[in-house]
């Protein structure tokens, strides 16, 4: 549904997006992760035909972004960084304008679709209020309605849950899941909320400084970026225990949780190493209360990757 090949955008000497290549299938929710200035918004703007690439190319919904920008725009719904609403127009007038701009000519169909979406977000009763009187969260919801009003096969959502309360954020996550599962809408989600990415995305792309660092399923990325962790709860952490663990060459990293007297031991292969770690601690006179194993969250994996990049 979306395919890019060496997509690049330069502003003078600055390369905002550097040879980014990826492919997104129909109905997939694809996450764009990266710090501010990573190139996420610039990539979305190129794919939405708002700016053109310096080189490289892309197709969206089967249309080339350089050869057929109008067809691309017809096939795409976009939630921009700002809600981009006409504040002197009412919620209904805003949606009515964009529905017509996206080609819903039939007024009955338009009205039905706007009502359906406004009701989904509990905004139908406020339809005749000017958008300027809405709260930030309500404006964000209206902007999402604008993006989805024409039932586009492709959605670009730039920080859709930014500034929303937990309930509203959940409504938006539910809508995204619904659009992806039921309507097979392809969603490109740019977000700082790694929880959103973890819950919603089939795959994620991590970007930094315009470059694509990794692409994969959230689970795969966590495995690739960070080692599994063994949490060992003790009665007391002693220097003898720490020295014994650090002397073990299968241990990658040891962190402590002093207040809880817990050790977080990073290893490569949990199954093979856990018994040996336990044995090492016992031999160092450690008294074990419990042993747990887990993987780093996507957020931890992401931070590790970005910090590693910055060190380079």
């Amino acid at each position, binding site marked *: 549904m979306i395919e890019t090949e060496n997509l690049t955008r330069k502003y003078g000497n600055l390369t905002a997006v550097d040879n980014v290549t990826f492919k997104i299938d129909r109905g997939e929710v694809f996450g764009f992760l990266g710090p501010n200035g990573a190139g996420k918004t610039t990539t979305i*703007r190129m794919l*939405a*035909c*708002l*700016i*053109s690439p310096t080189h490289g190319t892309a197709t969206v919904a089967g249309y080339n972004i350089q050869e057929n920008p*109008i*067809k691309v*725009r*017809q096939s*795409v719904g*976009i939630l*921009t*960084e*700002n809600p*981009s*609403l*006409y*504040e*002197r*127009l009412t919620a209904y*007038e805003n949606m009515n*304008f*964009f529905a*017509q*701009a*996206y*080609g819903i000519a039939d007024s009955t169909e338009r009205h039905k679709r706007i009502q359906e979406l406004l009701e989904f977000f509990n905004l139908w009763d406020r339809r005749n209020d000017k958008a300027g009187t809405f709260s930030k969260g309500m404006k964000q919801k209206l*902007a999402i309605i*604008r993006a989805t009003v024409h039932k586009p096969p492709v959605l670009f959502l730039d920080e859709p849950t930014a500034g929303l309360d937990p309930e509203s954020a959940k409504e938006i996550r539910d809508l995204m899941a619904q659009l992806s599962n039921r309507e097979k809408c392809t969603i490109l989600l740019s977000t700082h909320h790694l929880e959103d990415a973890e819950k919603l995305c089939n795959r994620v792309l991590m970007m930094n400084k315009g470059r694509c660092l990794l692409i994969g399923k959230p689970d795969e990325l966590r495995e690739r970026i960070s080692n599994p962790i063994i949490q060992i709860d003790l009665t007391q952490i002693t220097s003898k225990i720490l020295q014994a663990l650090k002397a073990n060459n299968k241990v990658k990293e040891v962190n402590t949780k002093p207040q809880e007297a817990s050790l977080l031991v990073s290893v490569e292969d949990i199954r093979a190493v856990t018994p040996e770690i336990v044995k090492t601690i016992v031999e160092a006179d450690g008294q074990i209360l419990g042993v747990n194993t887990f993987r780093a969250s996507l957020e931890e994996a992401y931070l590790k990757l970005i910090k590693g990049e910055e060190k380079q």
Partner: protein
Amino acid sequence: MNFHNAWLVFKKDWLEIKRNWQVLMPIIIVPIIISVAFPLIIGSIGNMPTTDVAGNQDFDALIPNLPLDVQNMLANLSPNLSTVYILLVYFFTPFFLIIPVMASSVIGSDSFAGERERKTIEALLATPISDSELLLGKILVSFIPAMAVTFVAYGIYMTIVDIMTFGMFGGLLLLPNVTWLIMMFGVTPIIALCSIGLTVMVSSKVKGFKEAQQISVVLLVPVIGLMIAQMLGMLFLGPLMLVALIGIFAAVDVAIYYLSVKIFQREEILSKQ
């Protein structure tokens, strides 16, 4: 080009403008001053004692350019009435070019620069509305209200002038005459289009509404130049001159439209944010 899309942009912008007093105020106040206040003040000169009026020496340079029959008529009028006649029928003619230029530049400045300032431009540019449809929509939203307000101002001015002078000139209706009709239906729309084209072009290149408006004010300079030139007797805005102006500005309009479409860059508009 799909005209429906251009009309859609027009309707949306017009809805916004109707609710924006910052834009509405100047396009209401200036025409009221020109079409109501000016004729009322000038018309009252006709009723003043002759000794209070300086006479028409100030128009010495203008009078030789007037048609012969008008010159003969003026020779038979009192100084008060000839002053009233020259002011109301000839001197104020170019003032009516200020209205469409001012109204269209105020609305036109708000077009792209205003959208950019209010951060609504990105969503608009992301729609499948083409560059030429967007540009035409923005031109229409400046042109239609500017023309409407100008025609209303013309109507009010002519009505007030005729009511006030009907008795003074022995039942003669001073307006409209051929010059005013050419002015209304020929020069005004063609100059408004020129002003709009330039303003929209400026608006798509600068950052904010105020910046666009300040640059657009420069467009009033040629109009004021016409007024001064007529006063100094350098030219006379008679039917022939007006037809010539229509021809010149029509050519300029076509050039501006093609130039606007050519230099209109969605990307640049967005990058100015």
